[in-house]
C-alpha cells in the first residue's frame, strides 16, 4: 500500500510534467514559432527549434511514459481498481469509480500512443534529428500538429474522469 501511495504521487508529478509541456507546445511554442517565422529581421524560429524544442520534447516523451507506467501500476496495486476492470470500463461492475478511471486510462493510453508513434518520430524529421525532404517535413509537421492538438482535446476529459474517479462525479 505504501508503494502504491508513492507510485500515485509519481504518477501525478509525471502527469503534470507531461500535460504541462503539452499545453506549452500547443498554447506557447506553436504560436511563438509562427510569430518568429513571420517576424522579418527578427531572430527567427531556429533558436527555439535548436535549443528549446529538443529539451521540451525529451521531458515530454519520457514523462508521458512514466505517467502511463505508474498509472498502470496504480490500477493493479490500489484495492478499488484493477487493470482489467479499468480497461473494460467497469462494464457489469456498476462502479462509477471504475468506469471513470477506465475512461481516463483509455484516453491516457491513446495520448501515450500519439506521443511515441505520431508526435516524436515526426518531430525528429521536423527538427532535423533524422533526415527528411521538405515535402516529408511538411507532412510530418501536419501529422505531429494534429496529434498534439488531439492530445489537448483528450486531456480535458482525461483529467475530468481521472480526478472524478477519486473525488466524485455528480451524475444526477
Amino acid at each position, binding site marked *: 500500500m505504501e508503494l502504491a501511495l508513492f507510485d500515485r504521487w509519481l504518477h501525478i508529478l509525471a502527469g503534470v510534467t507531461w500535460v504541462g509541456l503539452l499545453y506549452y507546445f*500547443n*498554447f506557447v511554442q506553436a504560436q511563438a514559432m509562427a510569430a518568429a517565422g513571420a517576424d522579418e529581421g527578427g531572430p527567427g524560429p531556429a533558436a527555439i527549434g535548436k535549443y528549446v524544442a529538443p529539451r521540451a520534447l525529451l521531458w515530454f516523451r519520457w514523462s508521458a511514459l512514466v505517467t502511463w507506467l505508474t498509472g498502470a501500476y496504480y490500477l493493479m496495486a490500489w484495492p478499488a481498481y484493477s487493470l482489467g476492470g479499468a480497461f473494460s*470500463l*467497469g*462494464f*457489469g461492475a*456498476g*462502479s*462509477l469509480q471504475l*468506469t*471513470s478511471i477506465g*475512461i481516463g486510462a483509455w484516453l491516457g493510453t491513446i495520448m501515450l500512443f500519439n506521443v511515441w508513434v505520431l508526435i516524436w518520430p515526426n518531430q525528429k524529421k521536423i527538427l532535423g534529428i533524422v533526415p527528411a525532404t521538405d515535402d516529408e517535413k511538411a507532412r510530418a509537421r501536419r501529422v505531429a500538429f*494534429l496529434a498534439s*492538438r*488531439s492530445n*489537448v*482535446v*483528450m*486531456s*480535458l*476529459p482525461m483529467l*475530468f*474522469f481521472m480526478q472524478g474517479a477519486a473525488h466524485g*462525479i455528480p*451524475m*444526477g
Partner: protein
Amino acid sequence: MNPLDTVTGTLIAGVVLTVILVFVAKAIVGA
C-alpha cells in the same frame, strides 16, 4: 477548416468530448 487548427476550436472540442463521455459513463454504470 479543422477545428483543431485553432486553440479555441481545440478547447471547445475537448469540452464537447467531455460532455459526451459523461453520458457514456452514465450509460455504462447504469447497464
